[in-house]
């Protein structure tokens, strides 16, 4: 089940290039339905990535809209040999960066608290026979949310794209406009920080600092 959750459902990796290229060509020719189809295929990932990066649903909604508007405007410059999903991720990261800059520093933590609250509400609604398990899961989710929100912007983007969205390191590097080695360094640091944070909250013994 966990493996299923990790699989990118919107863009199957094997056959995404062909259909996307055809859709892009049609959208470029002015076919609104084709562009709407592109949105349908990618909006869940765009929105969830923006939500993870920004922390609030409202910001993520604004970001997702801006991502597709930018995608439409610059679709003429998109190389159809490229991966559309990676291109949209790149736009998403840029849009989220712009929104975060406008919002100012330090707001990510507050945003993450809002996300915690929202997610907590969702989990509370799902109470049933395994209410205790749900509560533990909600607690862990809130903890991880907070840990991610505390990360520096670039490390947060790297960990969201690589470990949550399931992109490869090379795809993350392209989306962030950096080198794979840099991304690996950011991932290493971010994973260590998240583990330390969770260990501290859960009271589990921590190994030596890497």
């Amino acid at each position: 089940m966990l493996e299923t959750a990790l699989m990118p459902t919107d863009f199957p990796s094997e056959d995404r290039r062909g259909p996307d290229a055809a859709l892009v060509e049609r959208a470029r020719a002015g076919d609104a339905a084709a562009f709407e189809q592109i949105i349908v295929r990618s909006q869940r990932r765009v929105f969830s990535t923006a939500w993870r990066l920004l922390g609030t649903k409202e910001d993520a909604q604004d970001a997702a809209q801006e991502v597709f508007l930018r995608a439409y405007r610059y679709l003429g410059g998109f190389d159809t040999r490229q991966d559309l999903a990676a291109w949209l991720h790149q736009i998403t990261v840029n849009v989220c960066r712009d929104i975060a800059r406008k919002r100012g520093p330090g707001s990510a933590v507050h945003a993450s608290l809002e996300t915690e609250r929202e997610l907590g509400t969702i989990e509370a609604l799902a109470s049933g026979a395994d209410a205790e398990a749900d509560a533990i899961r909600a607690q862990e989710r809130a903890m991880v949310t907070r840990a991610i929100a505390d990360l520096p912007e670039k490390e947060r983007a790297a960990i969201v794209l690589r470990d949550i969205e399931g992109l490869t390191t090379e795809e993350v590097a392209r989306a962030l406009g950096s080198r794979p080695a840099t991304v690996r360094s950011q991932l290493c640091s971010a994973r260590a920080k998240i583990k330390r944070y969770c260990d501290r909250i859960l009271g589990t013994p921590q190994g030596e600092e890497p």
Partner: protein
Amino acid sequence: MKCARVEALLPLFVEGDLRAIRGRAVASHLRSCARCGEVADGYRASQRRLRLYGPSEVDDALLDAIRESVMKRLEREARRPGRARLTFDLLPARRLALAAVAVFIAAGAILALLGERGRDETAGEPVAARNSVGESAVTGPGPAEVAAPGVARVERPNPERPTRTAPRVSKPAPARSRGAGTRRARRSPADESDPVPPQRIELQTSDPLIRIIWFAPGKARDSGATTS
């Protein structure tokens, strides 16, 4: 490999982000070091928690609202011609061509501006000294020119300060099909006998790159309308 080195690599090892050789070295160390093995288990648990945070609970209604909002905005922009489609159609090659045209226009404007400034600076000098290289090539060796007031200007080559092109255009050039020689050839025989210079009249349009220059036949001195 020492424990400290292994622990530094564990965040990458647990997700398979290490190169094969280094990954094998870490795996080998973990088989023999229980303490590092525990740390690795801790990283695996942390990564599992991280994945629980993965995309799962995005409301479909919210996504529909986003899609509809985007499509409406695009529809609105499409109604305004030239805005949405502008960047849409700008392929890199087109952008490059547009940039080249912009540079060309800017260069032309700068040259025109410099030319105007040069004339302004030399306005106080004798008329003959104002004959620039480019103008002399156009005006040719005509001994005198008369300008219409306001938009037109009279320019006359300075015999004491010949321009670079003056020797070339001063030659009798009946075979030349363009330039001053042609104009000279078109003069009436009366001009040859009594050299009344053609009037060079310039009219600067609103576009700095476009200047209308024409040569009116030199009016006879008896008309009194021209100056020598």
